[in-house]
């Protein structure tokens, strides 16, 4: 992934606070809704899952695909943005 989306840069650029799950890069309206149904309503909940998986992008992508039906690109984008956020703010 050579370039990053605007959404990605927005998310990585600042603490996530109470941002909703849809502010994650790669998570749009539909995926966001699916995640919210499973209780992942905030970005930090998804981050929690990401951290539970020991920041393993591969596993996280796997989970995201399972949980929300995201495709590989979306999952990869989301995990990358969470990883970079962790690098910056953890």
């Amino acid at each position, binding site marked *: 992934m050579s370039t990053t989306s605007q959404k990605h840069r927005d998310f990585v650029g600042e603490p996530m606070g109470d941002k909703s799950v849809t502010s994650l890069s790669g998570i749009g309206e539909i995926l966001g809704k699916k995640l919210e149904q499973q209780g992942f309503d905030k970005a930090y909940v998804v981050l929690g899952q990401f951290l*539970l998986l*020991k920041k*393993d992008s591969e*596993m996280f992508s*796997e989970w995201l695909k399972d949980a929300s039906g995201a495709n590989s690109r979306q999952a990869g984008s989301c995990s990358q943005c969470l990883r970079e956020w962790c690098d910056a703010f953890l």
Partner: protein
Amino acid sequence: MSLFMEDPAHFSKSRLKSELVAHNVVLPPVKSRKEIYVDLHLKHIAQKNAGDFSSDDEDQENDLAAKEEDAEILVQSCLTDDDLKAVLLKHGVKAGPIVASTRALYENKLRRLQQSEGQGHVNGVEKGVLYSDSEEEEEQGEQEDGESGSEGAKEEIDELSNQAQQGSSQNGDFVYPQCFLLSSRMRAHATRKWEPIPKRNSRNGIKSSQQIPVGITKASSVDQRSGLGSGFPSGTHSAVSNGGSSISPQQSFSITEMVQEMEKRKSLFSCPNTERELNGSNVQEHWSRFNRPDTPIVDTMKNQSPYYTPKESPYKMKPSQEPVKDTIKEMFLNMEASPTGICATRRRPIKGAAGRPVQYIYPDSPTTIERREVERRLVPIHIQILVFFIVACLLYIIYVCVEENSFNPFVALLDSPGQGSESEEGLVLQAETQVTPVISRQE
């Protein structure tokens, strides 16, 4: 064996709950009674298990072939979190916390890993389940070593042990294999393989010898399956050929049969290797039995006992064990085999200690060197005394001289004012004398 399969009512509520969660069953409201959990358990889990597993020991030998796949999956889902983690670790995956939200992922991962490892390694799970971590190295070693078994036998045994594993891991209900008495030699071989079972499932008591076949086939299956792609040619052939011929999975076993097999195996194997037989090998065998907990030592023992058991012999080719081997051999060179298996050796003197000439003189410590240096510079004591007397004499002579000559310089100095007064007096006298003649002249 499958107490718990059949009677979920004996479970604690929390356990039921976790079981249900593990099976992705929607939990009833928090305050619901245990019966509800039990019902759910029966409905969702027991059914599934009943479909997949024969619920009793006797059935283990039967429907083996059909259910490998299901078994695998179910084994995963019935692993505890810790077990799952351990199994993953054995596959080289460092699992994070296994909680409700991550468990499914890790199970998937494990399944994928197992699939990718192929049919031959399907029983990786089994090993993971059955063998504790401490045994793992050994298992791995064996896995690497002897391999080449006849494929047919291997498959069968795979299935059997797989089934056995299902039973054991599912039900958590195990037998202490040690409950029967084996010949000492046998034990050296067999208990090694069996120990993990009770270790992991020690809460259940001795049940019956029904479980024995499982243990045996497990051991043998490990023998045969172990070490795909191993690079150690020697010893493996005899190991596997013996193992393959000895145990056919479908038949039931008796202890005596087992013992015979072991003996046969051993004798077969010892033939080609007699020339390599160390006089300590028997003892080492015994020794290894007594020291099983520390695996590396056991392994090195195995290095030296070529006919110990077929399975272990490949270890002697293992380069990594070489360094240890020498010292061990040196230590136990003089040991002799004893029929009881208990061996005692005379205490041997430590090298360089009493009874031997000192072969090596330790370098002096810095302080002794320093002291020696100082001593070298010191004048011998008689010279010191001589010098002392010389100096004393010199001082005395000087004193005496001073006494004698004291009048000369000091008295002169001291007397100089007296001399002065004397001269004055002299002058006065002179003056008087001068006056007197004057006076006398005047007179």
